[in-house]
């Protein structure tokens, strides 16, 4: 094996891999943030929305969670762009230029949103109802209840599930390689294809992904410990 190929500066491909890693993390962060936004709205809609909203959200979470991520990504990466541009055209705007990065974020976010909706819904249900009733009794408007009571109170319940979703998101970005988006996995494949060192490069990428997971784990554990201060430890 020719270890010099992993050097950070060309002709080594280490730099290309690290750039891929940064892209992966950017897409993961963007997609995760979008997923949480969808999740907050979705869980609120599922719990407090009207019957139609509840049913539509149920369809969204069920369908997205039942179809392989790979299929969703391939479908949305092309169809999503076309649909968005058709919509813009119909509304009289000029077509938007959707970069691969943005398309990736949208797709990952839409998928994660379905899981996040379920995690947050469970977490909100775990809040003792008296707390929310008390807030209402003080005359807080619904948005303030959400902001001041529900979201902060559900956080300790949601963190383990959300932490898990973050780890899943970082790994799901690898699927974007299949549609030709140059994140870590595709950068690795390109490096392997040019140099024919498949084993070395795929192993190197594995180490990078593992490092992301392990570092995330440490940070998430600190976060979990902080947010669950004052909570009764759950027996396992």
């Amino acid at each position, binding site marked *: 094996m020719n270890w010099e190929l992993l050097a950070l500066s060309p002709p080594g491909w280490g730099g290309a891999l690290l*750039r891929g890693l940064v892209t992966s993390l950017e897409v993961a962060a963007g997609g995760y943030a979008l997923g*949480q936004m969808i999740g907050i709205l979705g869980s609120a809609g599922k719990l407090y929305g009207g019957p139609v909203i509840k049913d539509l959200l149920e369809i969204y979470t069920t369908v997205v969670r039942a179809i392989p991520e790979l299929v969703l990504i391939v479908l949305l990466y092309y169809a999503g762009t076309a649909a968005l541009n058709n919509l813009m055209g119909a509304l009289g705007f000029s077509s*938007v230029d959707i970069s691969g990065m943005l398309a990736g974020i949208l797709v990952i976010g839409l998928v994660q949103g379905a899981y996040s909706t379920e995690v947050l819904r469970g977490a909100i249900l775990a809040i003792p109802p008296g707390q929310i009733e008390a807030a209402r009794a003080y005359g807080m408007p619904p948005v303030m209840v959400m902001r001041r009571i529900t979201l902060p109170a559900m956080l300790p319940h949601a963190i383990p599930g959300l932490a898990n979703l973050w780890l899943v998101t970082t790994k799901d970005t690898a699927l974007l390689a299949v*549609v030709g988006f140059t994140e870590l996995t595709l950068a690795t494949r390109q490096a392997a294809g040019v140099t024919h060192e498949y084993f070395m490069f795929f192993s190197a990428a594995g180490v990078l992904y593992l490092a992301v997971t392990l570092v995330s784990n440490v940070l998430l554990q600190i976060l979990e410990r902080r947010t669950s201060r004052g909570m009764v430890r759950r027996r396992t």
Partner: protein
Amino acid sequence: MRKLTSALIGAAACATLMAGVASAETVKVGVAAEPYPPFTVPDAAGNWTGWEVDLMGALCNKAELDCVITPIAWDGIIPALTAGKIDAIMASMSITPEREEQIAFSDKYYSTPGAIVTEAGSDITPTNESLSDKVLGVQVSTTNQAYAEKHFADAKIKTYQTQDEVNQDLYAGRIDAEIADLVTLQPFLESDNGKACCEMVGTVAQDVEIYGPGIGVGLRKDDTALLEKFNAAIAAVREDGTYAEISKKYFDFDIYGD
């Protein structure tokens, strides 16, 4: 809570930044997102190099277009074009009647026959009888796949997403032979792996119905203005010697064909 909110705002800002509105003169040229030597090859610095990339530079220069190379998976490159993710394809795509039902093509800018490479010392010849029951590797959705299905119907055809995977599996010994464009097989055969494992057993008989007139720039059908620009640019670089100059760096023969 505040962290969550700021993360959300950050993501929204990111999204807005990246959805810049396309300017009229920017043309996103799609290339297959994998090494396809000597035409489109990513290098370690993150740039694309190769004959086709150089030619793209010359064509866009002549046509006064601001071309941006956009890598995309080969098997999704036509949907990407029709969906507007890219505006043109320069990925060694042959002009064929089936593809012309979906997209428009410029005039051809090069041509290459198909050829068969086998393990060194193999007795396979480019005939259906010889390939019968042999595993024949080919990149998916290429003219070579169509050719193999028509002319080597008795072979066990195995399709791959990318050309470098076909080469790799021939090197690993998982397939008995591969069929691909002659011009892209040569750099493989000159590489260490190719030298060690494999040899060319010949080009396949031409079939114009399948291979078409040559390789062209793929464009959306309604994009006639861009089509005319590319045609004019191809004629211009052929005329003024730029084409020959670029080709000289990569080939010792005439890649344009006749």
